[in-house]
């Protein structure tokens, strides 16, 4: 694995693209054209961008969950097909059968995601077991929320990955929330890394929102995995800007206070990346075009034919 330098331009491009995509979803959501729940990543972009830039594209395997737009875009998933999938069209990633909660693109080894909290983690571990068995020199990156660590399967999977010395990076996006439930309402001890360490897995904790920092630590983690073939756990503190599901701010619900500083973190990071990107104008133009192309593509596409419902239930 070559040591890569942090590329501000790429980072800006991905970060901005994620943000613009989410904003476009918000813009059109009320029209009811995306007839499906969406779990937005606004506020959490730097994780996806930092991790994706550090990873080996098309080689590493990515597992995520229902909140996967950012991961999908950052890792370079097919953008048009993603939009078409959100629109439920036959040109979508899964002909519309998946929707926002189950995005996947094998072109970049992005495994179709699950909407059951924590249920893909053991699968990610199983995939890394297969990599090891097949002596393939790649790794699994498994994104999950801190809420997924409430599930016993997280600890079972973690133990197994350590026991079998598997090439997997766990990326815990700790936004402190599971829907409206604060982490403190669910966990006695908040020092997640300490728990993970006691299970025998190396941990790295990142408290700030710096894409570069995340990139560097991820790179370090991935190198470590490559070297000694053992799992690493990354905990990254982050902030969810909007409601758990859907497109609205949820401060009016009263369960959490709007913290202006936290709300601005992601936008400030974006600004910072922009300041380090010379041709940001071109990039923004490119993004706008990508989005409008994808929208057009998706709008023009057909819905899947009725009979498509019966296909691919089982493999012949």
């Amino acid at each position, binding site marked *: 694995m070559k040591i890569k330098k942090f590329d501000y331009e790429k980072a800006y491009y991905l970060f901005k693209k994620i943000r613009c995509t989410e904003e476009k979803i918000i813009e059109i959501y009320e029209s*009811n054209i*995306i*007839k*499906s*729940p*969406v779990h937005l990543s606004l506020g959490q972009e730097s994780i996806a961008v930092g991790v994706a830039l550090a990873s080996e594209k098309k080689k590493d395997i990515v597992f995520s969950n229902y909140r996967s737009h950012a991961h999908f875009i950052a890792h370079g998933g097919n953008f048009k097909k993603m939009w078409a999938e959100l629109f*439920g*069209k036959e040109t*979508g990633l899964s*002909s*519309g*059968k*998946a*929707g*926002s*909660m*189950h995005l996947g693109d094998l072109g970049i080894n992005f495994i179709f995601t*699950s*909407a*059951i*909290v*924590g249920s893909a983690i053991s699968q990610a571990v199983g995939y890394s077991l297969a990599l090891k068995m097949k002596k393939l020199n790649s790794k699994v990156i498994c994104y999950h929320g801190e*809420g*997924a660590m*409430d*599930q*016993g399967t997280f600890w079972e999977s973690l133990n197994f990955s350590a026991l079998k010395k598997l090439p997997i990076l766990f990326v815990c996006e700790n936004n402190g929330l*599971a*829907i*409206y*439930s604060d982490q403190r*309402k*669910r*966990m006695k001890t908040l020092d997640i890394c300490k728990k993970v360490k006691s299970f025998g897995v190396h941990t790295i904790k990142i408290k700030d929102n710096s894409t570069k920092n995340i990139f560097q630590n991820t790179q370090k983690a991935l190198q470590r995995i490559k070297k000694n073939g053992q799992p690493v756990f990354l905990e990254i503190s982050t902030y969810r800007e909007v*409601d758990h*599901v*859907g*497109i609205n701010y949820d401060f009016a*619900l*009263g*369960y959490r206070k709007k913290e202006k500083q936290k709300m601005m973190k992601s936008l400030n990071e974006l600004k910072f990346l922009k300041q380090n990107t010379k041709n940001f104008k071109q990039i923004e133009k490119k993004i706008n075009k990508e989005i409008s192309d994808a929208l057009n593509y998706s709008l023009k596409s057909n*819905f*899947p034919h*009725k009979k*498509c*419902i*019966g296909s691919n*239930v089982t493999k012949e």
Partner: protein
Amino acid sequence: MLQKNKFVNNITYADAILSATKIMLKKNKDVFVFGQGVDDPKGHYGTTLNLHKDFGEDRCFDTPICEESMTGVGIGAAIAGMSPILVHQRMDFLMLAMNQIVNMASKIHYISDGKLCVPIVVRACIGRSWGQGAQHSQSLLSTFAHIPGLKVIAPTTPHDVKGTLITAIEDRNPVIFIEHRMLYKNKGLVPKGYYKVGFGKSRTLSKGCDITLVGISFTVIDCINAKKLLQEKSIKAEVIDLLSIQPLDMSKIVSSVKKTKKLVIVENDWINCGVSSEIISRLIETYNVKFEVKRIGYLFTPCPTTSALEESFYPSPEKIAKVSYEMVTKKKNWKPRKIKTKEIEEFKGPF
């Protein structure tokens, strides 16, 4: 028939659940409510709204996301004499708690030869439509009906959901209490106070002599709409709300089928090894009735997310009406008009 008056309200299915819960929290200090998000600002579609404020955080509390153990906690508390109500946002999540439900809750009374009992109510909500997809739409009623020691109930009307919930909470056995997201906003007449609707009784919702339609949970609404369509062809359908899945009430179905000789059972689930097949088998095995029968249910595929395919997946008033028409008339010459199911049409998410 109930009439609106000072003792009877016109309220939603969700409010009926809330009302039953409040009555029981007041009546019995051993009752408590727990589950993911029960104390959050949405209070599980309003069904648990502000209970933690009204009754204290000890009696209505949020939990970590760990269905297996929270079910175990409920069972343990029930063994100790409490009456827990455990709320699940989706039926699908119960798959994580099957060990506790199937291996433990259903068997503890028997294993102890009656010395322990497990009065837990497991509330589970079936999702549907607007892109719920494969993992937020399952019903799995028959899976629970298959297991001795469990009671399984799936009320459709606001009146019945309140009455059966009170019965469920007072029942000393584990009860799988099945709700449907698309029913929460439906209104109906509901007595304000305490009352019970017994288990093991289905409910004839409307009379007819040409064909019997049996619905379960949301498909009862489909049957009612199908009945309207069939009226356009002067076919009189009798609509039965199965209501109680376990124990199963055959009496109303038997007498209806004796009259109509024709039966359509509309599963709110996949058909294979479902409740409808149990009903058919009992009719054949035990009752001396000659009849024709068709089952309608979810297509035997996972539920697709896109709305373009959802329609083919679910039973609908048209499908029911068409099948019924063909059974009654032996003709295939009618394509029922598409009827709008307001619950489905009006739903705009996000969850």
